[in-house]
C-alpha cells in the first residue's frame, strides 16, 4: 500500500519534471520547441528505463547490490570502437557517418561481445558467474589501454571529436534512430517484466531456485541476454553511463526496500527517469550550463558507490 502511494508520488514528480523540461524558458514557435525538446525527452526516458532495468537484473543474477553491468566493460568497448573508427576514418569522415549506421554497428558489436562473454557460462558444468565478471573487468582494462594507446597516436584535432563523444550526451537524436532504440528497449523491458516472478526466485540463489523448479542456468542466461540488449542500446544511443545505474538502483532500494521485482523494476525506472529529466532540467534550463549531465551523475554516483562499500564494511 505504502509502496503504491510512493510510486504514484514518484510518477507525479516525474510529470512535473517532464512538464518543466518541456515548457520552462521556452520562447518562440511552440511546435518547434516541443518537437525539439520532446525528442531529447524521449531519449532521456528510454535511457532511464533501460539503464535501471539492466542494473536491477544484473544485481539479481549476481546476488550483489553493489555491482553494475557497466563494470563488465561495455563503456570501455564503446570508447574503443569510437577511438578506432576515428583513428581509421579520420575525424572528418567520422562526423559524416550516418548516425543510424553507427548506432547499429555499436549495438551489434557490444551485444556480440556480451554474448561471447556470457556464453562462457553455458559451457561449464557449474556456472562460474564471478569468473565471468572478472573476465569482463580484465577485458575492460585491456580495451581501455588499447583506447589510450590509440588516442596517443591520433591527430590532436581528431582527438577533440573522440573526447566530445566520450561522455553521454542527450543531444538531438534523429527520429528513425530513436524508433529503433525505443523498440529494442521496450522488447527488453517487456521480457524483464514477464520474468519478474522468476527473478524473485533467482534472487534467492541457484540452489534455492533449483529447489523451486526454476532452472538457474537457463534463467541466468536469459537475464544476461536482456541485460546485454539494454546496456548496448543505451550506451550506443547516448554514450557511456558508468555510475548512473548503480546510483538510481541504490536510491530505489532505499525508497522501496523490497526484493519483489514487480515493485523494484518500476520504482528504479521512476527514480532513474526523475534523476535524468530533473537533472537535465536544472542543468540546461535553470543553470544554463552546457556540461553533460552524466559528469555530475558520475561524480555523485561514485560517492554513493564509496558510501555503499564503506557501510558494507562497518556491518
Amino acid at each position, binding site marked *: 500500500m505504502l509502496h503504491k502511494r510512493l510510486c504514484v508520488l514518484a510518477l507525479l514528480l516525474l510529470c512535473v519534471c517532464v512538464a518543466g523540461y518541456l515548457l520552462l524558458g521556452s520562447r518562440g514557435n511552440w511546435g518547434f520547441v516541443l518537437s525539439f525538446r520532446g525528442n531529447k525527452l524521449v531519449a532521456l526516458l528510454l535511457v532511464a528505463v533501460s539503464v535501471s532495468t539492466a542494473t536491477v537484473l544484473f544485481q539479481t543474477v549476481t546476488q550483489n547490490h553493489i555491482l553494475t553491468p557497466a563494470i563488465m566493460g561495455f563503456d570501455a568497448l564503446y570508447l574503443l570502437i569510437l577511438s578506432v573508427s576515428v583513428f581509421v576514418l579520420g575525424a572528418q569522415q567520422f562526423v559524416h557517418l550516418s548516425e543510424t549506421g553507427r548506432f547499429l554497428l555499436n549495438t551489434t558489436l557490444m551485444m556480440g561481445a556480451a554474448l561471447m562473454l556470457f556464453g562462457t557460462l553455458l559451457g561449464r558444468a557449474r556456472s562460474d558467474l564471478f569468473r565471468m565478471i572478472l573476465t569482463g573487468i580484465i577485458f575492460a582494462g585491456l580495451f581501455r589501454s588499447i583506447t589510450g594507446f590509440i588516442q596517443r597516436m591520433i591527430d590532436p584535432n581528431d582527438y577533440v571529436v573522440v573526447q566530445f563523444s566520450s561522455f553521454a550526451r542527450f543531444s538531438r537524436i534523429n527520429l528513425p534512430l530513436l524508433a529503433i532504440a525505443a523498440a529494442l528497449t521496450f522488447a527488453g523491458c517487456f521480457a524483464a517484466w514477464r520474468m519478474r*516472478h522468476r527473478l524473485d526466485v533467482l534472487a534467492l*540463489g541457484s540452489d534455492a531456485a*533449483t*529447489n*523451486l523448479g526454476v532452472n538457474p542456468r537457463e534463467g541466468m542466461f536469459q537475464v544476461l541476454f536482456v541485460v546485454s540488449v539494454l546496456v548496448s542500446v543505451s550506451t550506443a544511443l547516448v554514450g557511456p553511463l558508468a555510475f548512473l545505474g548503480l546510483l538510481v538502483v541504490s536510491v530505489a532500494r532505499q525508497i522501496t526496500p523490497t526484493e519483489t521485482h514487480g515493485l523494484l523494476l518500476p520504482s528504479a525506472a521512476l527514480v532513474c527517469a526523475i534523476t535524468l529529466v530533473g537533472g537535465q532540467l536544472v542543468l540546461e534550463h535553470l543553470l544554463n550550463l552546457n556540461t553533460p549531465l552524466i559528469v555530475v551523475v558520475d561524480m555523485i554516483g561514485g560517492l554513493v558507490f564509496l558510501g555503499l562499500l564503506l557501510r558494507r564494511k562497518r556491518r
Partner: protein
Amino acid sequence: MIVVTDLSHDRDGVATLKNINLSIERGGVTALIGPNGAGKSTLLSLMSRLLPIQRGTIMVDDLQIGRCPNDVLARKLAILPQSNDTAPLLTVRELVSFGRYPYHKGRPDQRDREKVEEAIVALGLQPLAERRLDSLSGGQRQRAQVAMTFAQDTDYVLLDEPLNNLDIAASRSLMAVLQELARNHDRTIVIVLHDINYAAAYADRIVAMKDGQIVASGSPDEVLTETLLWTVFETNPKVHRIGAKVMVQV
C-alpha cells in the same frame, strides 16, 4: 520411493561415487553418515538435481531425475541447501511464501496463502513471521527454511547437514520437527548428518558410506556397531546400548 541404480560420479577425474545402488522407502527419516569425502553430499546433490548425473539413474517414484521437468519435480521433492544465508532482507513470511512458487508461479491464491499460514504455525514461527531473516539466529533461520519446504508440500525433503553451526537446543528441536514431519505429515526425509548420535537418536534408517560406496544400511540398532564404526571412520569409540537406543561415546 527413491531408487538409485548404478550411480557413479567423477570430479576432476577422481571417482567420488562408485556404482551406488540404493533404495529409500517412503516415510521415515533416513540419515546418510560417513567420513568427510565419502560422497554423502554428492549423492544428495545428485538426488536433488543440484549436480548433473554422469552415469546411472535416480528415480523418485515415477520421475527420473534429469529427465522430468524441473517444476514437476519441485512439487515432489524439496531441498534444504547447505548454505542458509540467502536473501537476508526477506521476512520469514516472504521466505515461506516462496515454497508455494512451484504451484502458483507468482500468482498466489487463497489456498497458497492458507498453506503458508499452516507452515508458519506448524513450525511455531508466528512471533517471528514479520521479522527479517538477517535479524534471526542461525537456528531460527534454519527453522524458517524448513517452513518453506513444508509449505512446498512435497513428499520428499532432502537436507544437507542442517545442523552445521546450530547449538544443541536448536539441533534437537530441528531434528524433532523433522521426525514429526515424517511421522504425522507423511513426508520422507533424507538427511546428511555428521554427528552419529543425532542419526542414532532421530533416524529410522541409517546409510553408512565410505570412499564413494555404501558400506551398510539398516536401522540404527543394526548399523551402529563398534566394528562398523571402525570400518567406516577408522576410529574406535565405545557403543552403548540403553534399551533400544544406541549411543556412541565420543
